[in-house]
């Protein structure tokens, strides 16, 4: 079968509201179908490979699937993170560790959470992610079987980070497998936490993750949300994130992409209370035939909001990257400060970049700016390094790392910054 919502026999029936949501999702997907390049938002990213008839829904978690060593950004001599592990989209409690959580905090598999937190889930699930207009959200909703729930009670200042690890795997004889997990994050007023997502592959098996994340940040909540996607170069990674920031809430996101045959991070953040601050930075390093799409929408709906975005990309070989960044300032969102910058470094003349920055401003007292640049390595700098005895390849790596460093340095958590820096270095010196 193709990647569709028709086969939902794997779903465990849930409460009536969930069944209604799923049915609605499947109906919407039946109408919308998979996005195609004929749609403006998908002009540069073609999901046609997902319409091939080999795709199957990943079977529910089996304890027999051993994902091997689990990644963490936390060094061994630090207190460990709270960690949820997913294999092929399904939560694996046996591999997860959430002991020692403060009172009122919830971190668990979404399906398990339905028992104790049904009301909270019902009040939030599907409220930000739009199944009626976004096909991948509709598909995810229609096939919703697993995911994670993170709840921070008001005022909780979480010391240890939360890590969500999603590992894809598959055997030689398996068909390409798809999964549709959901991350639901509800951060109470004045709470603070760091959430790190790892997406990786254990094997070379072709998989497709269609992830939907919903983030609710209450008044004054502070969320640091860092993601690394380093799946194998055969896999598809489709992630749609929708976040809402209440008054004075702040969100700091970072997207580090080195993996995937085709990946798309679509992030929509609504600054829905005065004084909210959204920072969204990222780096992508791609080569070979990789396709990497970053699509962002920062929606300034209320006055006095601040947003800033800095994305940097490095493309080698025949890699193709897309950056679509839209900053929307709604009527009345006065004193908005919205900045956006995308810079790409092309290491090969066969690489391709499509950058489409957009400002849409409906208020008059705002400070907004955007920019996009594409370039190659600075010949003067390269010669300077080589003239000092640094090999050509080493000199190139040094300059590429320096290019990327500017954005990674904006990660305010030093432990994560160091870990992401070393992941980027790993891309520069493969094998």
């Amino acid at each position, binding site marked *: 079968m193709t990647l569709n919502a028709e086969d939902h026999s794997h779903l465990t029936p849930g409460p009536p509201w969930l069944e209604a949501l799923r049915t609605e999702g499947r109906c919407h997907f039946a109408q919308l179908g998979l996005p195609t390049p004929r749609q403006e938002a998908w002009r540069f990213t073609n999901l046609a490979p997902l319409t091939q008839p080999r795709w199957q829904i990943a079977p529910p978690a089996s304890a027999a699937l051993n994902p091997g060593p689990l990644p963490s950004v936390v060094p061994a001599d630090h207190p460990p993170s709270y960690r949820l592990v997913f294999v092929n989209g399904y939560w694996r409690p046996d591999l997860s560790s959430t002991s020692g959580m403060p009172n009122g905090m919830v971190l668990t598999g979404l399906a398990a959470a339905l028992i104790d937190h049904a009301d909270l889930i019902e009040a939030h699930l599907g409220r930000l992610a739009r199944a009626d207009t976004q096909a991948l959200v509709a598909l995810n909703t229609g096939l919703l079987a697993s995911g994670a729930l993170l709840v921070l009670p008001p005022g909780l200042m979480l010391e240890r980070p939360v890590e969500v690890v999603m590992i894809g795997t598959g055997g030689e004889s398996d068909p390409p497998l798809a999964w549709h997990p959901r991350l639901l994050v509800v951060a109470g007023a004045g709470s603070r936490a760091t959430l790190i997502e790892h997406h990786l592959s254990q094997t070379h098996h072709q998989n497709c993750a269609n992830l939907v994340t919903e983030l609710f940040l209450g008044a004054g909540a502070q969320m640091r949300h860092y993601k690394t996607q380093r799946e194998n170069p055969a896999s598809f990674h489709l992630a749609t994130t929708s976040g809402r920031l209440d008054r004075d809430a702040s969100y700091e996101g970072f997207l580090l992409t080195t993996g995937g045959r085709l990946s798309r991070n679509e992030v929509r953040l609504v600054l829905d209370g005065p004084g909210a601050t959204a920072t969204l930075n990222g780096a992508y390093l791609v080569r070979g035939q990789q396709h990497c799409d970053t699509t962002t929408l920062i929606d300034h709906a209320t006055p006095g909001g601040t947003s800033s975005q800095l994305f940097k990309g490095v493309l080698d070989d025949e890699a193709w990257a897309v950056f679509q960044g839209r900053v929307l300032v709604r009527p009345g969102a006065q004193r908005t400060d919205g900045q956006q910058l995308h810079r790409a470094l092309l290491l090969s003349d066969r690489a391709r970049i499509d950058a489409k920055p957009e400002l849409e401003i409906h208020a008059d007292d705002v400070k907004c700016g955007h920019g996009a640049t594409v370039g190659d390595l600075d*010949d*003067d700098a390269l*010669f300077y390094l*080589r*003239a000092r*005895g*640094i*090999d050509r390849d080493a000199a190139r790596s*040094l300059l590429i790392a320096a290019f990327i*460093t500017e954005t990674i340095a904006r990660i305010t958590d030093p432990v994560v910054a160091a870990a992401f820096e070393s992941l980027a270095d790993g891309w520069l010196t493969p094998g």
Partner: protein
Amino acid sequence: MMSAFCAALPDPGACGGTPPLKWTSRDQERKPEPMLEITNLHASVGDRPILKGIDLTVHAGQVHAIMGPNGSGKSTLSYILAGREGYTITEGSVTLDGRDLLTQSPEERAAAGVFLAFQYPVEIPGVSNATFLKAALNGVRRRRGEKELDAMEFLKLTRTKCRQLGMTDEMLKRAVNVGFSGGEKKRNEVLQMALLDPRLAVLDETDSGLDIDALRIVSDGVNALRGPDRAMLVITHYQRLLDHIVPDRVHVLAHGRIQRSGGKELALELEARGYAEFGADEAA
């Protein structure tokens, strides 16, 4: 008669028994093989010839100055010695210690002992000076078959060199040349030279962008690196640098050729009379 005739000749004993022939031999000991030998060098950029037959021999321990008007090919010569791409060598050869330089990559030349102090040192945001210097030093050491230095050994050596050159090691932490003053950039070049211990240092317009105090500090650093095993090629438009770095020989480069060579007094003459006699447009 006979004795008077004999008295007019130097007494072999008084001369220490050294026959005149020996002088030639000693002269050869002082200047054994040439270190840098440029022979009939022609080079162009695209279709435009820039160097039109340069001959230059520099021996170990010597400092040669190359002076010339703007556009004479001075910077082209320095870039060609360091191996920059974009120049076509149409004729001639360049050897360092008898080995062909022109077929080597810039990093090979650096290891062989060529050091170009840039007129405009390049700013490299995101790379710390310490990272850069360590990569350079270990790159050169690896090619020279020497042991690479670990972080501690590197820091110790660099601090020692900084002290010898009267520099603080504060600029090790900053990004390469980013936000450096003109003087700091040139001192950074001298520090790199001290660390890489070159055979041949080419100083391209080292005085440009320097006030008189910075010029003295940089020149002191360069002079501290003069030695019997090292040659220097000082490329400059103005004579004032040569007050501080006193050359053994001065060459005038104009229209892609060396027009005249002489001792250090030639620089003073040029300062007084300009390059007009070499057909240069001084206003350029």
